[in-house]
């Protein structure tokens, strides 16, 4: 060991510009040993991995979000500045690895020189050595190392070239920096490296920095300057400290933005001669493959058309590929549930296990195939560089509706699951654009709505073909997606006019060179999104599933027992066979339960939409997760064993039976059929627009930092769903 027993593990930060290939390097260095780190005070998740040094020593490697400088504009980018300005932060690194794209070195050195001035051991990794070799770019690494006084290593995240050397050099550097301070880990006192600052502060900056150092006890002059720039949003500063900084900034009449630009330009002036002296690149050719591809993919007419074609292919793939694994999961859980029921005593805890916990788990896992396939395809589009082009093409369109070109990524992801989709909005710099994206994404029809749509369309829409080609049912199914998109855009537009905040908004995005995807990145990224769904959404779905089981299993007083007895007597009188009798008992018990009572109690509110109290119960049980709707109806309509099969896409027989049964259902007071075209369409619209997903609300709360927006979203979507459903019902009945 290295004499630091008992101290926390070494922290290494991986930092770089967007598109520097940093995450690829991270994946190379840590393999599959990754997890999402917990960064106090910030909602952005930072990936962490374990780094094994050849000596046996271990360190935690954190993959910080890509940023161009320590003057951030988005939530994502702020993480880097907020951790690096606070040595007391548990994630403050003991050493940093800066990843630069060597083919664009003169653009990637700005942030590097800012890190240099923070006096934390720093290593420069020149990534994409394979591309550099192809392009004929040569770098004199030893000269570069001398100029900046840091170790420099040429690597390739794509091929894995020199990954081991990077790790070895990193350990040497870490050990070296420790030895200089007598084997003790360096955190605050003293300078580990007596390096001249790369950027000499101006006279005014010196005064501001000095005042902050004295008042806040900050050691490093550049860190003090960064605090002067960022004090208003740095979460670790106490209110009093923020006030102190604000006073210093105003008494010295320090103009933050101007100073940032001047500093940036000064840094360029200082490092450009270094990069020019160390990098030799042949003249660039004007017409590279990327230029030729973009002439087509971002073409005025062709670009958007190709985008829609790509999206159609993606959806086709989701439906074609996901049905098999979904069937396996469905039938697997069905078999397990039946097995447990047969093996365990008939008691409430068996029901809790099968109808509560297993049903909940199955309900979560059944969506994994669709979500995984969609995110796999989106990751590929991101990896090759296409998503940046989509952002570019649709920025104008999205802005009209209060969003940002980057919102396209969230909305597309929303077709799988709103939870990871909302999390992907963190790259949007402008708060209002990001908020609107978060607020409208749940309108996009996610995979959980599909089973509900399929059953209802089966009832409402005749299975005919228009012009002999287009099935009317598929058209309505497609229309449900269109409805979601329209609702998202309309509410975005409304929110834009309502919020109307003037704040700087940025698009400025790099359009990277098209590259073959790195499959390891694609798979890890997909896994991350699926994990976000399972952990973020799954936990809540499971808890709610258990709670709803309780609500539909137990009732006020002895109402359940009475209903049970009454149903058994009725079954005997009607001479029903065992299966039908059991179904009737189940139905009556549900009606008598808390959920059933609530359904009846809701009746006056939902009758204008064309619903009876049974649909009311289903609305309640699917309150936290939409897909529960069909299962509940199956119980209510006395479908007995069909319940398990009803969500099963392939089991058309089960669905057809439920549909037949639903068609026969009549209002108890008027005797008219419940499931008219109007009611079914009204339900479809309700499910398309309503916010029946607790997991999404939880994520919205986390991402916006308060319940305010989550509650507002819930109220807004519920009202929209209610009014929309009512309008459709009135229109068609």
């Amino acid at each position, binding site marked *: 060991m290295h004499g630091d027993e008992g101290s926390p593990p070494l922290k290494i930060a991986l930092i770089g510009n967007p598109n520097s290939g940093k995450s690829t390097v991270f994946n190379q260095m840590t393999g599959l040993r990754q997890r999402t780190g917990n960064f106090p005070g910030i909602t952005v998740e930072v990936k962490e991995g374990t780094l094994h040094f050849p000596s046996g020593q271990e360190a935690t490697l954190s993959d910080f979000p890509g940023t161009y400088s320590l003057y951030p504009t988005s939530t994502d980018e702020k993480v880097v500045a907020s951790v690096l300005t606070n040595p007391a932060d548990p994630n403050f690194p003991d050493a940093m690895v800066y990843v630069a794209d060597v083919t664009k070195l*003169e653009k990637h050195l700005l942030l590097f020189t800012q890190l240099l001035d923070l006096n934390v051991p720093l290593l420069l990794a020149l990534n994409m050595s394979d591309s550099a070799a192809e392009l004929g770019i040569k770098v004199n690494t030893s000269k570069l190392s001398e100029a900046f006084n840091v170790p420099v290593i040429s690597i390739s995240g794509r091929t894995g070239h020199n990954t081991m050397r990077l790790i070895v050099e990193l350990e040497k550097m870490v050990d070296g920096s420790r030895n200089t301070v007598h084997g003790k880990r360096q955190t605050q006192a003293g300078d580990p490296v007596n390096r001249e600052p790369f950027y000499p502060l101006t006279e005014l900056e010196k005064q501001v920095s000095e005042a902050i150092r004295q008042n806040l006890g900050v050691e490093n002059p550049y860190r003090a300057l960064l605090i002067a720039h960022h004090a208003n949003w740095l979460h670790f500063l106490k209110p009093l400290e923020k006030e102190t900084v604000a006073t210093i900034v105003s008494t010295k009449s320090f103009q933050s*933005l101007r100073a940032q630009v001047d500093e940036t330009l000064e840094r360029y002036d200082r490092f450009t001669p270094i990069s020019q002296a160390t990098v030799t690149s042949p003249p*660039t050719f004007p017409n590279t493959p990327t230029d030729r591809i973009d002439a087509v993919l971002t073409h005025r007419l062709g670009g958007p058309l190709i985008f829609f074609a790509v999206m159609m292919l993606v959806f086709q793939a989701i439906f074609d590929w996901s049905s098999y694994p979904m069937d396996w999961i469905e039938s697997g859980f069905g078999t397990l549930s039946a097995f447990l029921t047969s093996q365990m005593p008939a008691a409430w805890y068996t029901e809790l296990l099968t109808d509560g916990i297993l049903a909940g788990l199955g309900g979560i896992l059944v969506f994994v195939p669709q979500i995984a396939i969609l995110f796999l395809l989106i990751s590929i589009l991101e990896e090759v560089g296409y998503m940046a082009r989509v952002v570019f*093409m649709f*920025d104008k369109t999205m802005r009209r509706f209060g969003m940002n*070109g980057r919102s396209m990524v969230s909305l597309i992801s929303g077709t799988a699951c709103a939870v990871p989709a909302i999390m992907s909005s963190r790259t949007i710099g402008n708060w209002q654009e990001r908020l609107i994206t978060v607020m409208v994404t749940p309108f996009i029809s996610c995979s959980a709505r599909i089973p509900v749509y399929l059953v209802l369309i089966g009832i409402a829409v005749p299975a005919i073909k228009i012009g002999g080609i287009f099935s009317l049912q598929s058209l309505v199914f497609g229309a449900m997606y269109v409805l979601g998109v329209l609702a998202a855009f309309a509410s975005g537009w409304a929110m834009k006019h309502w919020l109307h905040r003037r704040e700087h908004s940025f*698009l400025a995005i790099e359009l*990277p060179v098209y590259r073959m995807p790195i499959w390891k990145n694609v798979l890890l990224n997909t896994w991350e999104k699926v994990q976000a769904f399972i952990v973020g959404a799954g936990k809540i779905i499971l808890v709610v599933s258990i709670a709803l089981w309780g609500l539909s299993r137990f009732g006020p007083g002895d109402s359940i027992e009475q209903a049970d007895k009454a149903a058994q007597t009725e079954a005997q009188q009607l001479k029903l066979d065992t299966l039908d009798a059991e179904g009737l008992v189940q139905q009556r018990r549900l009606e008598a339960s808390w959920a059933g009572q609530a359904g009846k109690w809701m009746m006056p509110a939902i009758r204008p939409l064309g619903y009876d109290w049974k649909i009311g119960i289903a609305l309640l049980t699917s309150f936290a997760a939409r897909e529960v709707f069909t299962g509940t109806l199956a119980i209510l309509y006395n479908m007995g064993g069909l319940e398990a099969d009803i969500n099963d896409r392939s089991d058309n027989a089960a669905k057809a039976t439920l549909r037949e049964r639903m068609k026969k259902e009549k209002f108890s007071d008027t005797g008219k059929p419940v499931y008219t075209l109007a009611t079914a369409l009204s339900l479809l619209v309700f499910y398309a627009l309503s916010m029946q997903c607790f997991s999404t609300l939880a994520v919205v709360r986390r991402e916006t930092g308060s319940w305010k927006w989550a509650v507002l979203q819930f109220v807004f979507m519920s009202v929209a769903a209610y009014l929309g459903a009512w309008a459709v019902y009135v229109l068609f009945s």
Partner: protein
Amino acid sequence: MQRRYRTVPDLKVNESARAIAFDDSALACKLTSMGFLPGTRIEMIRKSPFGSAYYVKVDGVRFALREEEAASILLEM
């Protein structure tokens, strides 16, 4: 009086010009950190399908800029 500068949206497709300055500090901060510096040559590649965004090239690196961002970069005539 005739303007002594123009901005990125004034460029025709495939035309390029040298940047001189910025007229918005917040945007300047972002743009300079991305490599849009006074003195660099900015080439217009194409306009976005629905307008209001520009595909430009700076030192062989491709960027997309919004109308406001593009218009904040002052170019030599």
